[in-house]
């Protein structure tokens, strides 16, 4: 009988070589999803690859034009990061919504995205930031728009010999702010029923919406980048935002279902509330009361 083995390397290239050579390697990082799913039958996996020590995947780095988040960054590390708290507070808000402190200290950005739940809390704010992901294999790396990474519930666009290595986004401009609003059945340890991120950029006078990106989770098979809703709000004066029209556009763009956490009807209703709430908070952060 073949014996079970765990592989753990500090080097990315060593790890990528290993997962290319192994038959059916199972990747574990923080383990907060993997062990819930597989904890009772780990003995079935002959090859476990613990990627938690890979140094290239760690850390948050603020570069001249972009912010790079290593795939092993934990939710707590995101929440604690001073640059993100100052310039991308809504990403921090999303990280704080995940699980509970014990989960946040272990669960990773990479795991949240690769598990590809449509409810993944980190997806909407990152998509709204226009983030790109980087995946690497022993043959090389590729980058992609984050919203294209999600193929369906539980299915990410990642080959079995690849690892998601990092996510990066352009540094938020002046006069921009975001908000992430999550609806859940509890205020902690809750999978989101609806999770919406808004990222707004205003003009110099703070009178018009110069740019806006909206992304929503748990209302479709994948986290969505909202295009029609964006079109309604783009260029509008903040003093007279067409909220009714925006809400109508939103309900047309999303396709929620009934599931154990809520009904389609509830999600259609509460998404509209959350849109207004998130917009209000983002604008308030820019000093604008609507």
């Amino acid at each position, binding site marked *: 009988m073949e014996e079970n083995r*765990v592989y753990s390397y500090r080097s990315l290239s060593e790890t990528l070589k290993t997962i290319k050579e192994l038959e059916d390697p199972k990747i574990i990082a923080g*383990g907060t999803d993997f062990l*819930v799913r597989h904890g009772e039958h780990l003995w079935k996996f002959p090859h476990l690859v*613990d990627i938690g020590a890979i140094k290239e995947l760690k850390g948050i780095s603020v570069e001249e034009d972009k912010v790079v988040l290593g795939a092993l960054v934990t939710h707590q590390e995101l929440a604690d990061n001073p640059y993100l708290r100052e310039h991308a507070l809504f990403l921090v808000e999303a990280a704080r919504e995940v*699980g509970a402190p*014990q*989960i946040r200290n272990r669960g990773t950005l990479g795991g949240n995205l690769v598990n590809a739940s449509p409810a993944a809390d980190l997806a909407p704010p990152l998509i709204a930031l226009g983030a790109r992901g980087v995946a690497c294999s022993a043959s090389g790396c590729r980058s992609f728009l984050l919203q294209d990474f999600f193929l369906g519930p539980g299915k990410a666009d990642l080959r079995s010999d690849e690892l998601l290595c990092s996510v990066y986004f352009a540094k938020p401009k002046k006069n921009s702010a975001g908000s992430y609003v999550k609806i859940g059945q509890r*205020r902690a340890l809750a999978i989101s029923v609806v999770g919406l991120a808004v990222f707004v950029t205003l003009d110099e006078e703070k009178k018009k919406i110069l740019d806006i990106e909206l992304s929503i989770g748990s209302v479709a098979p994948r986290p969505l980048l909202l295009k029609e809703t964006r079109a309604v709000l783009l260029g509008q004066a903040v003093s007279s935002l067409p909220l009714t029209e925006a809400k109508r556009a939103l309900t047309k763009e999303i396709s929620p279902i009934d599931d154990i956490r809520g009904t389609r009807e509830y999600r259609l209703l509460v998404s509209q509330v959350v849109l207004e709430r998130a917009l209000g908070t983002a604008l308030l952060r820019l000093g604008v009361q609507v």
Partner: protein
Amino acid sequence: MRVAITVNVNEKSYTLDVMPHDRLLDVLRNELQLLGTKEGCGKGECGTCTVLLDGKAVNACLVLAVQVNGSSVMTIEGLGGEEALSPLQENFIRYGAVQCGYCIPGMLMSAKYLLDTNQNPTREEVRVAISGNLCRCTGYTKIIDAILATAKGGLECG
């Protein structure tokens, strides 16, 4: 295939042979007989298995033993000692925070993690700090009171 790990638990170093699928929780309870850390759900939702791993509160049921090689772990047995309880433990008793006691080791470890990282928490911050720990008996109020009192008491954390 057994893997050798070296781990510091409650300030003592151990070298153990573990199976790839052993959880930290299993090793603490079965190898080291540290029974204060409990298994309530086995899936990171109840917090009765909360320990500090390299100073951070984690669910021991969701950490593989092989992942703690070279790390340090503190369990409830490492809080306070045989001679004297820690200020947190004293206040849990003083404020009536303990009923059946099952959630308490986890609550205390989450409280210690809070006070180690935030010496002056608000009531809301305490609630967030224990949001990963379920209690079926107390309704949480006195647990929160005890933690706040410990913070305000200015006593050394834990």
